[in-house]
C-alpha cells in the first residue's frame, strides 16, 4: 500500500522535506510504524520525529500513534500549533 506523508513548519524545515510517498508491503500499518519507517531515513529524521511534542494527523484528523493507516491515506507530522 502507498500513503502520502506531509510535514509542516519547523519540522518541514529540519527535514528539508514537505511531502513524500511511502510504500509498505502490508495492507495497514500504525502511525507509529510510519514514524519508524521515516526514522530509518537518517539521524535528523530519527531525532526530529522522536520529539514527544510532534503532533500526528491522518486524513486531516489529529490521531495517536496506535491509529491505523490504510492505502491512500494522508499522514501528517507537525509541531504544536501556534495560530490565533
Amino acid at each position, binding site marked *: 500500500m502507498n500513503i502520502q506523508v506531509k510535514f509542516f513548519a519547523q519540522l518541514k524545515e529540519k527535514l528539508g522535506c514537505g511531502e513524500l510517498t511511502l510504500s509498505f508491503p502490508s495492507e495497514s500499518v500504525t502511525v507509529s510504524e510510519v514514524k519508524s519507517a521515516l526514522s530509518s531515513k537518517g539521524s535528523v529524521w530519527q531525532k526530529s520525529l522522536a520529539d514527544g511534542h510532534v503532533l500526528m494527523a491522518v486524513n486531516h484528523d489529529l490521531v495517536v500513534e496506535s491509529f491505523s493507516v490504510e492505502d491512500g491515506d494522508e499522514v*501528517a507530522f507537525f509541531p504544536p500549533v501556534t*495560530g*490565533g
Partner: protein
Amino acid sequence: MVVVQEADFDLAVEYQKLTENNAQDGAVVTFIGRVRDFNQGQGVTGLTLEHYPGMTEKALKGIEQKAKERWPINRVTIIHRVGSLKICDQIVFVGISSPHRESAFAATEFIMDYLKNDAPFWKKETTKQGCHWVEAQQKDKDALKKW
C-alpha cells in the same frame, strides 16, 4: 462559517452578516486577534502564518460544531488569515450571535481556546535578529482545562 484567507477582514461587514435578518439574537460577541510588536522576549517586525490546507478548515469546522452543541448560539463566523502579516494587522476573527450574552461570551472564548490548540496554524516571527518559529505555550494548553 469558517474562512481561511490571505486577505484582511472588516469588522463592520462581519457584524452585518451576524445581525441582518436576525431578530432572535439579542447578543453579538466578536473577538479579533492582532499581530503585536513584542512576543516571547523579542521585538517583532512582522510574521508569516503557515497552515495545513484542508485540515485547517476541518479542524475549525469541528470546533464550531462543538461550540454549537454546547451553547444555544446561532450564527458563528471564524476567519483566520494566512501568509505574510505586519504589526497591527488582524489575524483572527470570531463572531457569535445568540439570544443571550452568556452563551455568546463563553462560546467565543471556547472557540479561541480550541483554535489555539487544535487548528494547524504556525507563526514564524520576523525580528531585527532574524526569523524564528513561535513556541507553543503551556498557558494555551492549560486554557482547555476550564472546558
